[in-house]
């Protein structure tokens, strides 16, 4: 047997240890990782020596290590890269606290970046997700998320409000929905239409499916939506368009089934970011060509686009955004929530895609995921549209919505344009997270 003594007389080297398979089988994803029980108290004790001073010493350890690693990758400091990847691997866990989770998911991206295997990793993540997605789990997930957090419902309420106001007096309505909401937005709208004081208008809903994964799920939704509309007594037509085979901006009026005499609304929630950066202008031009009464745009507030050629900057922004998101998830869900785990896993695709995939290469699967901030989208939309402020009624509806959730949520004033109205911003703990806006030609 080698003596311990000898360990020091030789070169120390780092290797990428994997968590032993023993550890993994002992853990069910749905119980607390043993570390979490001790982790929480310690991090509260030690990161708060005097009581909550801000400063570099009190930054979370995970973001420090992750940023250091990202920087080392950009400097190509291989020794440091190895060491930091090893440390992150040791300390991270998808079942731990926020720090451990962020370390886990971002470690994956760093590893891919260091080994230039991002594209392949992304493709395998997509195919795994494809196989495991099903309507029931997706629906349960979204509904649960909406129950505990206004992250998505904020956009729904704002958009529905704007759309209803724009459709006032019309009776042939056509909504072109390019979103990732799986139609959870529309039941409330249908209800509102049904209870309008004048005659109930007819609604044609054309849903453009861009996300590859949603395709199988959407078929189920068709039936449910039609049934619901019948219940509400709203004359209803539902069309599903597959927009993923071709570029979104290449769709035509005919394909979208746009007809004369219709009042058109384009609803775009979380969809613009999935369009390749170069194509975004064209997509907006398409919207304009449909001559809609209103265009509603809702996007998550983060900028992964302007820094897309600067790895470290992009990494910092990614980390900032997902830290907020994970913390929000942690506070919104119960500690043993399956749904939270699934939502976190969903992030890994986006993180890997944004940070490690080469945009130049043709990645036919999956989505772009490069978010832009509200003011950036404004610049783009201004070329064809002008902003419509949300009416007081809609703002009140949103505020009432926020009251239904735990504290921490608020409406923030858009910081860039304090004079001009530039949409509504949902804030969590005073950080802007989701931006909603309405536009007319």
């Amino acid at each position, binding site marked *: *047997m*080698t*003596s*311990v*003594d*000898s*360990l*020091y*007389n*030789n*070169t*120390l*080297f*780092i*290797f*990428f*240890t*994997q*968590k032993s*398979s023993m550890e*993994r089988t002992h853990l069910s*994803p749905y119980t607390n990782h*043993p*570390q979490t029980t*001790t*982790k929480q108290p*310690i*991090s509260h004790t*030690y*990161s708060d*020596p005097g009581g909550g001073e801000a400063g570099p*010493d*009190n930054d*979370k*350890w995970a973001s*420090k*290590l992750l940023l250091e690693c990202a920087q080392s990758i950009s400097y190509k400091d291989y020794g*440091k*890269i*190895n*060491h930091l990847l*090893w*440390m992150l*691997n*040791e*300390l991270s866990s*998808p079942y731990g606290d926020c720090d451990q989770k962020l370390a886990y998911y971002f470690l*994956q991206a760093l*590893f891919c970046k*260091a*080994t*230039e*295997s991002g594209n*392949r*990793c992304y493709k*395998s*993540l997509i195919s*795994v997700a494809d196989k*495991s997605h099903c309507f029931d789990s997706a629906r349960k997930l979204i509904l649960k998320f909406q129950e505990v957090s206004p992250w998505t419902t904020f956009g729904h309420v704002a958009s529905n409000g704007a759309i209803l106001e724009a459709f006032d007096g019309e009776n042939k309505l056509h909504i072109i929905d390019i979103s990732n909401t799986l139609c959870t937005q529309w039941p409330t709208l249908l209800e509102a239409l049904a209870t309008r004081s004048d005659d109930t208008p007819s609604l044609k809903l054309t849903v453009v499916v861009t996300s590859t994964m949603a395709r199988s799920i959407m078929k189920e939704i068709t039936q449910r939506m039609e049934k619901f509309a019948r219940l509400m007594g709203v004359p209803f037509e539902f069309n599903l368009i597959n927009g993923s085979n071709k570029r979104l901006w290449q769709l035509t009026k005919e394909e979208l089934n746009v007809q004369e005499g219709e009042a058109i609304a384009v609803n775009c929630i979380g969809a613009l970011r999935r369009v390749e950066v170069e194509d975004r202008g064209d997509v907006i031009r398409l919207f304009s060509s449909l001559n809609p009464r209103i265009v509603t745009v809702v996007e998550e507030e983060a900028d992964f686009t302007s820094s897309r050629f600067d790895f470290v900057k992009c990494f910092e922004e990614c980390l900032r955004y997902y830290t907020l998101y994970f913390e929000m998830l942690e506070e919104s869900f119960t500690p043993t929530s399956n749904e939270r785990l699934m939502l976190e*896993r969903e992030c890994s695709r986006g993180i890997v895609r944004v940070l490690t995939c080469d945009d130049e290469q043709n990645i036919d699967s999956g989505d772009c995921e490069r978010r832009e901030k509200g003011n950036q989208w404004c610049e783009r939309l201004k070329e064809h549209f002008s902003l419509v402020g949300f009416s007081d009624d809609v703002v009140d509806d949103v505020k009432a919505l926020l009251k239904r959730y735990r504290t921490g949520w608020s409406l923030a004033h858009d910081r860039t344009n304090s004079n001009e109205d530039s949409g509504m911003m949902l804030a969590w703990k005073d950080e802007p997270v989701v931006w909603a806006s309405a536009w007319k030609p």
Partner: protein
Amino acid sequence: MAMVFNHLLDLDLSHYSTTTTESTTTGDDDHYCNLGDWSPVVDWDALSVHPQENFNGLLEFEPNEDDNDHHMNLDSPTTLMVEPPVSPFSDDVKGLRLVHLLMAAAEAMATDNKSYDLAAVILVRLKDLVSPNEGTNMERLAAHFTDALLSLLETSARGVVGGLHYKQNHHLHHPTDVLAAFQLLQDMSPYVKFGHFTANQAIIEAVVHERRVHIIDYDIMEGIQWASLMQALISQKDGAPPPYLRITALSRPGSGRKSISTVQETGRLLTSFAASINLPFSFHQCKLDSNETFKPSSVKLVRGEAIIINCMLHLPHFTHRPPTSISSFLAGARALNPKLVTVVEEEEQKVEGGFVGRFMDTLHHYSAVYDSLEAGFPMQGRARTLVERVFMGPRIVGSLARVYREEGEGGSWGAWLTAEPGFQPVNISFANHCQAKLLLGLFNDGYRVEESASNKLVLGWKSRQLLSASIWTCLETN
């Protein structure tokens, strides 16, 4: 950080093929193990039996997923020409991993780079991996070091300042445990006897013509050292009557819990022992205040007695005494004009690298101690574990606390005495040196003793020096 990565060669991560890199081991202690034969290149394939699975473990976390369809193909065989070591669960690999984690934790706590929450996270992870009662030497050692760092973290993060406020170990071991551990320590290793016998031999040689001997003991504990000295004094060869022996033991307020017996109890034991062998003997206490300032005037002196100053600082003493206390004692002792001053202390290396460097050196030190015990008694795991818990654990905590507060600057008391005016070295006699060798002969042959100076014997395990005994005098003529 630099010291670890000196030997990592550039890894061309942008392509999958890399050239073999030459191993650049520093040590030439080849007879220990062949870790150095491993080329220090990152093995992205992971060192396991199922490389595919392990990578998927990282990239995908669907536990039910059949991994083989869509895994990452990073394992191009041309990647690395490294002979993969044994399975990752072998002791060496785990040991190395623990060392790295410890080092990372130490780094996180190093004074110019404090990241307490990172250190805490690493230590929590370590605690998951190790136990002080089970596993290999490295694992148990890592457990004690982890605990030591955690207690250090606790005091630092709460802003407790150093000085005399050492975090005393309240390891209230059951007295029978302590006794048992002490006995085991003596039986399994020469650490206790080396210090006692070397000091005693020098004392005997120094007092050979003295009628009265007065020993002032800094930390008497159970007085075991004096039992053997008394026996030696009684059985002097030339039939002359033994000298009148007085022992004055320093006692400290509230320290009774640390040792098995109080100073008074020790005194009673020694007195009755002396009576049983017909040695004229009397015992005194010198009470120190809480500052532990030694006042030579408080020692009762008798005309014509030869004064011996005895300062044992190593095992089996549980904790490190504050340096101010020791220096106050030694400096004060000089005023008493002692014929002999015996000092036994842990041998420390001078190490670069700030806290991390000294931390690693401390780790190296104790791992040598653990190895030495294991080499002699490989089957007696539980016994060794007990000794480690009772004695090593608290000393590790104390060592690290000192290192962290940068006290002593790695200097030994021997060096202090050399620099301090009034102390002259006394040669270690040939007989003393032989005795030490004989003692070691009773144990495993990995132990070595050498004269590192004319007045100093150093006990070591293999290449690591662990314990030193040095002899001094304050008399002008000897």
